[in-house]
């Protein structure tokens, strides 16, 4: 008996929808086995991971806080990936957005500036992210540079620029030399939605982004163009769509959204600019984008799901003493299964018996 992958005549829509679910189920099974190996009750562990956080309002709000940047970045990335443009550097665009927006917060700190500060910061953040994304986009269009490499490498550049700023010119004069800016003024803070929680207005922005993206991808010519260029570049050229312009456009959208997410995170839950503002949001968002099938609503669900694993992972550390590393293993396994299951959209698995094969050969 032999397993072979056989190309399907056309993509299977059924599998396209089912594949993330299959991936999640496979992940759960694998995790349960891992828990069992660690000597933990798998059912109790999965319960702590996936059920408990959904049972109280505090955890639900924390999930929303965590999902906000993930969803915004992933929506931007989906524009790129749909058009076959491989922006891997959302982490850098996130950081540059945070840096550009924070600049306003730093210079207006303690000056009693009016409520215009926050909106202006958000605009600066989006612009900063978009401009940072333009570098790999222009390099690709003008010189044919591989955007996977250039966008990824720029993550480290962005990180170091932020590092320099918070250790040097922007450092809090009263911060005992610790690398952080002064705490932002209230006018530079994203307002909290429910008093006493950390749920902030950024969550609403994320929902608006999901809606706009749904409309744009589903109902506008631009959305159609993105899909055509991604799916059939030759046909797109015949239709007069410029793939260069689209590279610039998708990079700009994705950079702007990552940048906006960055400044919202800094002006929201963090409240200062400091190293380590992102625990890898820009990279985790890649998982979110694919898990959500590059579809805005799918991404929203995927973002919430991944946020759930973070919060649940922490709960598991507290109540079951399950190491943090397992949460990371978990996310890695999830992406692995998502990509593996995706091959089933274009291929099917067939069992072939050696006898049949031999018979075919003689015929």
């Amino acid at each position: 008996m032999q397993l072979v992958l056989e190309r399907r005549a056309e993509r299977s829509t059924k599998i396209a929808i089912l594949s993330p679910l299959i991936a999640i189920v496979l992940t759960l099974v694998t995790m349960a086995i891992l828990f069992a190996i660690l000597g933990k009750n798998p059912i109790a562990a999965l319960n702590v991971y996936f059920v408990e956080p959904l049972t109280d309002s505090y955890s639900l709000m924390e999930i929303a806080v965590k999902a906000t940047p993930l969803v915004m970045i992933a929506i931007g990335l989906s524009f790129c990936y749909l058009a076959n443009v491989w922006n891997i550097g959302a982490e850098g665009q996130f950081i540059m957005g945070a840096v550009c927006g924070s600049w306003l917060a730093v210079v207006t700190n303690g000056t009693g500036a009016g409520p215009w500060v926050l909106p202006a910061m958000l605009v600066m953040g989006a612009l900063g992210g978009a401009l940072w994304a333009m570098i790999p986009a222009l390099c690709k269009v003008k010189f044919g540079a591989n955007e996977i490499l250039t966008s990824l490498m720029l993550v480290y550049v962005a990180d170091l620029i932020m590092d320099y700023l918070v250790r040097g010119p922007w450092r809090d004069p009263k911060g005992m030399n610790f690398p952080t800016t002064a705490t932002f003024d209230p006018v530079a803070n994203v307002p909290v939605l429910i008093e006493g929680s950390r749920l902030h207005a950024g969550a609403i922005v994320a929902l608006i982004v999901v809606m706009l993206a749904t409309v744009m991808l589903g109902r506008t010519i631009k959305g159609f163009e993105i899909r055509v260029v991604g799916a059939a570049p030759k046909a797109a050229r015949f239709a007069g769509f410029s793939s260069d312009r689209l590279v610039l456009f998708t990079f700009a959208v994705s950079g702007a959204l990552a940048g906006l997410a960055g400044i919202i995170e800094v002006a929201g839950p963090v409240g200062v600019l400091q190293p380590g503002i992102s625990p890898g949001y820009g990279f985790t968002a890649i998982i979110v984008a694919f898990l959500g099938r590059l579809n805005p609503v799918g991404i929203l669900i995927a973002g919430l799901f991944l946020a759930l694993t973070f919060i649940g992972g922490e709960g598991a550390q507290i109540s079951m003493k399950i190491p943090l590393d397992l949460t990371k293993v978990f996310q890695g396994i999830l992406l692995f299964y998502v990509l593996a299951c995706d091959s089933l959209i274009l291929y099917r698995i067939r069992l072939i018996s050696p006898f049949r094969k031999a018979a075919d050969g003689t015929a």
Partner: protein
Amino acid sequence: MRKIMMTAAVAALAIAATSYSASAAEKLKVGFIYLGPVGDLGWTYRHEVGRQEMVKELGDKVETTFLENVSEGPDSERSIEQLARSGHTLIFTTSFGYMDPTLKVAKKYPKIQFEHATGFKSAPNMGTYSGKFYEGRYIQGVIAGKMSKKGVLGYIASFPIPEVISGINATILGAQTVNPDIKVKVIWVNTWFDPGKEADAAKALADQGADVIMQHTDSPAPMQVAAQRGILAFGQDSDMIKFGPKTQLTSIIDNWGPYYTRQAKAALAGTWKAEDTWDGLKEKMVVMAPYTNMPDDVKALAAKTEAAIIAGTLHPFKCPVIGQDGKPVECKGANLEPGQILGMNFYVKGVDDKIPGK
């Protein structure tokens, strides 16, 4: 299938609920937030040892939880709050960067007792604690001054916060008592724990002629580099003799166990109060590892210095303290005030470096 899943979920919920209520009744739940992995063999490892000592001492009167690898960014506030919400009534946050997040959560949960290590902000339900590590640094300075053949010490520094700066100053003040021309070269690695960076810094310092390496970072990597290069080094946070049996002179050991035990006992007895605790060699929060790889006269001098600090007859920052610019630092008493040491933002004479960003 779905039915099975549902039953399983309900059963699991029931198990979780019963085990939770059974344990929450009388035990004191103590939570810890760690910066690094418990296996860093340095800072976090010593806090973990302190936790284990407390558990050993108090047995089933306490139940402890730790969260490791908690970055000092936006996630730390949630991690601290998660501990507060899950029934922990005494919470230790063990790194400087958790100061503001701890304060925020402390204000939100006034009935829960918080202790923050190495910071300077407190609240009615949030105390601070730290060790007088500069006392150990001073002894290391004396040893290094004697042991360095080239008269050049290499210092791997993390962040230019007062604790680190006072450590550098105490080192050179100690070294100057035995070798007035001693030099200290400083490399700032801007991290508490990054074995790769720490090793690179140690190599660079050795290349610049340093023959005694000291560190204010948490991994044993610099000790290993020193061992390869055949020079000497001091361990940090824990006894690192395993990583350099022929290299380590001594090490400043952070000894949190007695303190954690004391505070947990106070919480159990209902006498816990938010205090600013700053203990040193005398109270055994700072302990020196055995003096090794040095001649007997240096060993004796080190032991004498240690005894004098414990007896209170020797203070590392005894006035007058001469600043880098050659002018004496303002002095009110016989020694620098605790506040001047806790907020130290200047170098003393002889340090061959500039405080970053100053």
